[in-house]
């Protein structure tokens, strides 16, 4: 079944696929599964098993990590054309954070079978995919480092701790 034109147009805007040729995008689209979430609906919880990554096509989802009781720290708001869940796809580890819909959302899921097919049939596209993925990882690592620093600053300011004079 041929992928609709609007889906192909959308995929071209996703950073992971910007260097894909038209036939490669069409092949990729065939491996993607659509998931719909209502507002507030949980997609998965931290610690759940998983082997899919998701691309937000419409709406927005919230990524959070448990802190204490009912309180979680918001790690990211994922908007259209952005993606999440790739860590479990690549290493098979349990989900490292909880994801739920901030608004009604449509997601595109790529599972391990689909990724394997991409690697087997379109090695050039797979290389472009992983190259883009590494760039995004670097950005996210930088953002995480900044978040750690900000959380530390928050702690110092909230406690009034005078470290300089110690």
């Amino acid at each position, binding site marked *: 079944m041929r992928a609709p034109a609007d889906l192909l147009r959308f995929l071209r805007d996703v950073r992971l696929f910007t260097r894909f040729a038209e036939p490669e995008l069409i092949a990729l689209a065939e491996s993607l599964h659509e998931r719909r979430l209502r507002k507030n609906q949980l997609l998965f919880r931290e610690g759940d098993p998983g082997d899919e990554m998701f691309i937000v096509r419409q709406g927005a989802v919230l990524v959070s990590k448990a802190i204490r009781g009912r*309180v979680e*720290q918001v790690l990211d708001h994922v908007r259209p054309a952005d993606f999440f869940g790739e860590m479990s796809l690549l290493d098979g580890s349990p989900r490292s954070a909880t994801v739920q819909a901030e608004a009604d959302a449509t997601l595109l899921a790529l599972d391990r079978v689909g990724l394997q097919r991409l690697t087997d049939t379109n090695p050039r596209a797979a290389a472009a995919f992983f190259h883009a993925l590494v760039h995004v990882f670097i950005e996210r690592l930088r953002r995480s480092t900044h978040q750690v620093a900000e959380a530390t600053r928050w702690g110092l300011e909230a406690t*009034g701790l005078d470290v300089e004079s110690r």
Partner: protein
Amino acid sequence: MTERPAPAKLELLVRRDDESFEVREVGSALGFIQSRPQRGAEGSFEVSEVRSSVAAERSFILKSAATERFLVLSEPEKFLWEQMDGNTSLQEIATAYVLRYGEFDFDIIPNLIRKLQRARLLTLEPKSRLRQALARNRGQRVAKAVEATLTSLERINLSSRRVQSVFQRLHRWGGFVLFTRAAVVACLAFGVIGGVAAVALMRALDDVFSGFGGRALLGVLAVKLLFFASVALHQLVHGLACVHYRRRVREFGFAFLHGFVPTFYVDVTDIFMATRRARVVTAVSGTLVHLVLGAVAFLVAAHAPVGSFTQAFAVASGIIQWQALALSLYPFCFIEMDGYHVFVDLLGVPTLKHDAVSYVKALLRGRERLRWGRLEALWLAYVGLSSLSIAAFLAFNVWIVVSAVS
């Protein structure tokens, strides 16, 4: 100029009973005012009031039993300290403060918290202006060399923190006699007899100093060395007084103050927690060593052959001992000697020097207007008298050296 960053924020998700949730941004300021500071458990601190006949406000000394350091708290700060029970948030503490004092000083709580958190409390090491100037001019070889030398000397510190038992034994084996009425009478007697001898000797000072002959510089150096030894005795008596009032001597040792002033020192800050009488006696008793030694020196000089080296040496020693006595007891010299501590204790203004210097500096820079309250008058008097006294002290010493050498 570095711009101060906006207060940090955390984005938190709070789940409700149903599937829904709420995302809240929590600023560090909110975290701060909702924190519930808890002071140490009973027994981990002591509070002692400093009574004042001048300052309008009462002040208190807070001692941490863990670090054995001290903080001077104003009455409002003590009120805040008492609220910090671990159950009351800073917001509630601030409200209680407003209800009590009818106003709120936005800096008082953060400043107090910083002070308390340090409760390694005050650093007693004076920061030398000379060292600051040298640090600024490290680019110059001479400054760098001087700084390196001073740093090396500063590292020389022969001291012990396990001296309490030594002082207790010294006190038990006879040191307690120094704190009897008989000792006070003996001191007074020495003072009077030594004074009479000194007056007689001063009438013929030129003849007396002629005893140095061609060894004037050697004589002056020997006098200084003997005096240096007497400083150790001075500190020893402070320690005995501290033990006499059942407080702890924390340290005794030798160091180079500011990197170049060799001195013995004793840490008797624990006496702050005792009565005012104990604090005054501890401060004054050390200085009386100089009274007695000076008197003995004058008596020796009075009985030595006129114009002999012994007489010259004894008179010079007597002068320097009594000068040390005056200097130690005299509160107006910008140096926080024993007399200063007694003076501020009696007035109940423990931060007199700092406040006075800050006020006069602000006046000179036009940041403060001249006011004539009791405290302001005290500050002005302190700075004025201290400046004059230092000038007089320098002039007197120049005269002594010139007299001795010529």
